């Protein structure tokens, strides 16, 4: 099994390379389009220098070369993970991203799982109570939540749960001078993440809701459910094992596809809740026109989506016994 998994991962990563290349081309084009180059930005951020100094920097960084050469230099930098220097946060881009990445992954991962869980649960209920007002109510609620701007929902949560009820903290990911032991810190972080994760999950829930509802309506009518009833299995067990479980597969497939949306949403949510993650770093970069940082985050975001899709595909292969590798044996 591990042999197949290994080759599967390797194959997928290889397939990802053209995508990364194209993205690199796009990002390079974007950087070229900007007025002024990296040296100008660097000097502007670090206090200026004379023309001669600028020219020397350009020579050092290879910015005086022709376009194709500059692209190759850029490519080399990308693949060696040297994404340049960020003036907005005064540290190498790679380092800035690395610091912020875990918070975003934590928030996004929880949001994806929660959104899928809520969507599947309510989609399932809608399917079982199909045609009744419960079904309509659930479907409409999903549509309405999906139509709300996520920052707006977040702000409303803040008004209700932070201002009026004081149940949750306003900002940040951890309390300053908070608990230092592992469990205490974990709980503190979790407490801070409840509202942002909930906001993200509710906004993107509608897709899973619709998927699960459709899938369960299909499985409900399948022959093995009839056979299970013929065997006298109780209704609850049939719903769990024979209707819901096969219906989850399309939902799992979709998990990866929503990652890009959630990552984009996290930019706004991190800004609303002041979470120090990749999203708020992106905002900072854009606000201060720190293009190397923006470019770096674009690339990192893309890579993150690729990795999440890979993980989801692996999970799906474990869950659906009908998925085989090229040689026809179960993965």
């Amino acid at each position: 099994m591990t042999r197949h998994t290994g080759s599967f991962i390797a194959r997928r990563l290889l397939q990802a390379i053209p995508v990364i290349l194209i993205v690199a081309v796009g990002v390079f084009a974007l950087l070229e389009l900007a007025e002024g180059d990296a040296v100008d930005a660097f000097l502007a951020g670090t206090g200026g220098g004379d023309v001669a100094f600028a020219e020397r920097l350009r020579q050092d960084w290879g910015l005086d070369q022709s376009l194709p050469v500059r692209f190759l230099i850029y490519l080399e930098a990308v693949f060696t993970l040297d994404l340049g220097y960020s003036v907005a946060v005064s540290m190498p881009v790679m380092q800035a991203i690395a610091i912020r990445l875990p918070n975003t992954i934590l928030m996004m991962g929880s949001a994806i799982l929660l959104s899928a869980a809520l969507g599947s649960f309510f989609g399932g209920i809608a399917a079982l109570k199909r045609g009744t007002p419960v079904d309509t109510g659930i479907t409409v609620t999903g549509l309405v939540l999906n139509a709300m701007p996520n920052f707006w929902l977040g702000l409303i949560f803040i008004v209700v749960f932070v201002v009026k009820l004081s149940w949750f903290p306003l900002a940040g990911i951890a309390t300053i001078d908070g608990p230092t032991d592992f469990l205490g810190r974990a709980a503190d972080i979790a407490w801070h993440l409840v509202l942002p994760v909930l906001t993200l999950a509710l906004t993107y829930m509608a897709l899973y809701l619709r998927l699960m509802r459709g899938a369960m309506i299909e499985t409900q009518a399948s022959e093995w459910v009839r056979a299970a009833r013929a065997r006298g299995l109780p209704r609850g067990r049939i719903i769990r094992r024979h209707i819901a479980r096969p219906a989850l597969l399309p939902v799992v497939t979709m998990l990866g596809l929503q990652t890009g949306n959630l990552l984009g949403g996290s930019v706004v949510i991190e800004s609303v809740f002041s979470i120090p993650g990749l999203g708020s770093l992106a905002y900072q970069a854009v606000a201060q026109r720190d293009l190397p940082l923006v470019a770096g985050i674009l690339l990192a975001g893309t890579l993150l989506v690729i990795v999440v899709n890979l993980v989801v595909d692996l999970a799906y292969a474990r869950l659906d016994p009908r998925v085989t590798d090229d040689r026809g044996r179960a993965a």
Partner: protein
Amino acid sequence: MTRLGFGGWFGLGALGLLVLVALAADLIAPGDPLDIVARPMLPPFTDWAHPLGTDQLGRDVFAAMIHGTRVSLLVGLAAAAGAIGIGIVVGTLAGFLTGWVDDVLMRVTEAFQTVPTFLLALAMVSVLGASTPNIILAIGISSWPQTARLVRAEILSLKSRDYVDAARMAGMRPLMVAFREVLPGALQPVIALVGVTVGAAILVESSLAFLGLGDPNEVSWGGMVANGRAVLRIAPHLVVIPGLAVALAVLSVSLIGDAFGRRLAPARER
């Protein structure tokens, strides 16, 4: 026509209302909505000259809401139109020409689909500057992959049908066959995507405006929410009202898209 259902009619009505408001904005609320017109922090429903009150700078909320309709609808519809247009062209070329053209186009599509949409729009606005045309361009460029995939899939399945062969036999050049014969049939499922695309475009625009990256010369609902955030504790309505408008616009477009998608679906299952 009744097959549109309650949702479809509600969506159509709400969108119609919004379009009317956008077109008649200058009539309903003449003047520049960014002008300071009264004392700050006037509560809503107290002064009928300013029905929704004023914000912390004394600007009329009602006027801003009315004019904000323009930006949201314009950007939403234009960006979606662009995205769908690009998607149709790419999808048709890929589906019809196959071979290496298809491979390359699909890789590019995959790349655009993998990049987080909002981050890409963010980056583009940051590089190109925050003006309405740029925003439309940025959103359009990030949203076309879904349409391209769908059109390509449809074309691939329709290509083998008889009427295509007939056109080919009659000597039509391949691209002409693609666009004249095959494309109209392939467009049906795209109709269902229109609702989603427009809705997403409106949300991206409002998010960009919320982050301060909207067109500074225009009033946008997203920008209003950002503005109201500063006084969230004492005047939450400044946040609630513009957000509701965005939700309403996106919801009506989604409902329309759903209703039309469902209406066309039965005809296709033949």
